């Protein structure tokens, strides 16, 4: 992975979110907040419908980084801000598009910072999404 420079576009990856994925994420993570699977509860608290766990979105974006890196353990630091919830309809699905580019290179530490863009239904859902990846 030598020769990477700031601004290099690394990948664009699309994930499909549906209610089944949210139920799967709830079970895997232990986050059973009903706003992620129960339409009635989601609307009662003022949402436009069932929304994805922010952490599911963050996890999917992490997968795009890890696949590019080739080693899931190479992601040494990873942070995001959640800007907009992703409403996941039923029936239906939503596409999440994740792109990464090089934001910084630290040759001494042997790491690069990957700056991520994550959009669903044309809306940016993560801000300040940055992953520091070990390259050696």
């Amino acid at each position, binding site marked *: 992975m030598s020769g990477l420079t700031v601004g290099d576009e690394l990948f664009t990856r699309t*994930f499909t979110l549906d209610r089944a*994925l949210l139920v*799967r*994420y709830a*079970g*895997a*993570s*232990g*986050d059973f*907040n009903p706003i992620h699977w129960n339409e009635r509860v989601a609307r009662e*608290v003022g949402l436009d419908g069932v929304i994805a*766990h*922010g*952490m*599911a979105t*963050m*996890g*999917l974006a*992490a*997968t795009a*980084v*890890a*696949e590019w890196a080739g*080693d*899931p*353990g190479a*992601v*040494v*630091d*990873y*942070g*995001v*801000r*959640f800007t907009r*919830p992703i409403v996941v309809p039923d029936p239906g699905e939503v596409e999440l598009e994740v792109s990464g580019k090089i934001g910084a290179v630290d040759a001494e530490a042997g790491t690069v910072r990957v700056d991520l863009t994550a959009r669903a239904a044309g809306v940016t859902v993560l801000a300040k999404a940055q*992953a520091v990846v070990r390259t050696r």
Partner: protein
Amino acid sequence: MNDSPGRPTSVNLTLVGRSYAPTETYRVSAVKIAEMAAATGASHPAHTDPAAARELGYDDVVAPPTFAVVVAQRAEQAYIADPESGIDFSRVVHAEERFTHHRPIVAGDLLRTTVHVDSITERAGIAMVSTRAEIADDGGAPVATVRSTLAVRGEGR
């Protein structure tokens, strides 16, 4: 709606600086790693095949990059579910999350987590509550630091 922008939330501001000692030893299982990988679209064989993980230098299957949230959120309950915190979970939105991995998490790890309430700021009827979960192995060596910020809406927001 009688909404005053400066109205305080129910969140207890006096708990900043408090720490919550580990309440359990969390044993990382290969099954939970595989479940989290599947739930985040991760198909790398090192999540499910110990031989593939060993090729990358790990002792057993390796966790996906956000796996530590499972461990951190269990530990954060000691604070969030404590009535003294004043946090009404039905009014909570996740605002920020950050993982710092001191080493990758692998199946078989025994993890103990201490939760710190780092800051609580209140503005325009919303409290921003920042916690830090320090995850260590059973020998006390640091494994991961998980920083989380929740936005808690006050009444009328």
